[in-house]
């Protein structure tokens, strides 16, 4: 599918109704607060990319969105329900309408690719085995893995594992798809393939997609809107163009890949240490002792 065509279709089906809504979300591990009052919405059919550096809290944010971490305060609204304040059964009901693709794929190593994809269908539907078989083949075909249902995950490459994980995440035809670092650990060509897959899924199924990444090229390709998280706070939020044009120092530093000043100072110090300090009268010495 042509990239231009996909880009033209962006946001066409985005309505104002938010599928994901965060209100003053705080998350803490013990005494250490990771997220300090995050608020933003993700509209239906929109692809929201959560950007941020290592340790910024973006993965914790994603884990909170799918209910793997508990909010210490604030609200997390998914499909119209505040998951910070619901029972396990209600959470499980919501989870049947969302899909999650993990950074390391998280395929079950003891099951074939087909069984991995079929697992949610076998667990949550009363479909006949023959119907499930047809559906899993369809899902694998959608991610470009037709014919791989009998392979074990260990027999797949990194990119294929990511695709299989996406097929599993899509098994229940979710309304919201979450991706944690979809391009992490993949070479640029395979990573571009995963980006393309995300765009195709959006185009074909009009899904709401939330992606956590720090890969800028990937983020600008797939996003409708972006939110930049830094040290547990929202620094900026906006469309791809708004972010590109942003003059906010932190946004510019992140997008222009500028090192932190203290890192720069450390590098100067390292350079000073490694400079030649041999006296001038020594062979090869420059005399800067």
């Amino acid at each position, binding site marked *: 599918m042509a990239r231009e065509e996909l880009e033209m279709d962006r946001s066409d089906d985005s309505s104002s109704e938010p599928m994901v809504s965060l209100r003053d979300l705080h998350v803490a591990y013990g005494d250490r607060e990771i997220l300090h009052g995050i608020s933003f919405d993700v509209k239906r059919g929109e692809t929201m990319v959560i950007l941020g550096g290592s340790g910024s809290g973006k993965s914790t944010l994603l884990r909170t969105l799918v209910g*793997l971490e508990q909010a210490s305060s604030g609200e997390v609204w998914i499909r119209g329900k505040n998951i910070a304040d619901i029972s396990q059964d209600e959470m*499980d009901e919501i*989870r049947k309408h969302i899909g999650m693709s993990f*950074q390391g794929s998280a*395929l*079950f*190593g003891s099951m074939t690719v087909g069984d991995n994809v079929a697992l949610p269908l076998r*667990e949550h539907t009363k479909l006949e085995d023959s119907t499930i078989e047809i559906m899993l083949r369809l899902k694998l075909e959608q991610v470009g893995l037709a014919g791989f249902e009998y392979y074990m995950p260990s027999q797949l490459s990194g990119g294929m594992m990511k695709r299989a994980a996406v097929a*599993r995440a899509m098994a229940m035809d979710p309304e919201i798809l979450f991706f944690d670092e979809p391009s992490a650990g993949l070479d640029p060509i395979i990573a571009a393939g995963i980006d393309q897959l995300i765009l195709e899924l959006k185009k074909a199924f009009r899904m709401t997609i939330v992606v956590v990444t720090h890969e800028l090229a990937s983020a600008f390709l797939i996003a409708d809107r972006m939110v930049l998280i830094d040290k547990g706070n929202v620094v900026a939020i906006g469309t791809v163009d708004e972010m590109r044009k942003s003059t906010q120092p932190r946004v510019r530093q992140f997008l222009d890949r500028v090192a932190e000043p203290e890192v720069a100072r450390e590098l100067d110090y390292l350079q000073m240490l490694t400079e030649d300090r041999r006296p001038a009268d020594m062979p090869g010495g420059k005399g800067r002792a």
Partner: protein
Amino acid sequence: MELVSQIGGGVTNGLAYVGSLATLAGRAAWYTFVAPFRGRPLRLTRAFSQAMDCGVRALPILSLITFFFGLILALQSAYELRKFGAIDLVATAVAVSMTRELGPLITAIIVIGRSGSAFAAEIGTMKVTEEIDALETMAISPVSFLVAPKFVAMIVMLPCLTIWANTMGILGGGVFGVLQADFTIGRYVRASMDALILRDLITGLIKSVMFGMTITAVGCLEGLNTGAGAEQVGKWPPPAVGWSFFLVVLGDLVFTMLFFFLGG
């Protein structure tokens, strides 16, 4: 004062750990005995596969070890009984010791080594590779999917293995009886059967069910509590082994005292 505080802290942590084990075992028991009546069927295929792993595949090593244990027990008993001209009682000594105590205990120790640590490693690896998180995001309870089948397999297979261990131990004692104490095989087996009452067998089997629950709970809890990083999984000996040994022996002591004071 610091010592008292350390002891207090240790006791509190120990009790908290036992509380976590009881909670996990309780949840596994709910998924095993209650959930099937509420439209959440037990995963019998996974339970059967676990039963093959922790039960059937343990038979060769269990048979060898308990056979030798029976033989050792007969030799040790005969050493004393010979002095009193009561070598005929070897069959009784071996049968009662194996059935009431050693059969369940040796079986539990072998199963801890084979399966308890394997449970911890399997679930720990799944935790590190985010497979447990994946189960949760698919609205599949890890306790229902991973722990309950192991729980079923263990509470069914441990008593079966214990009966097998008792039999092999008695056979091992029988080898000594036939070669050194003028028994025939038939007379030795008859003497063993006469020495046992149903209560002996039942106390041993009750213990084995408790051991099965303990080993499963410790192995699975240690797996679920694994920290981040592969090095956490590869720690040897895994905490599951030490905790299982301790809790199985402690449970054994409690049950033996209970049966003793109840007149068993």
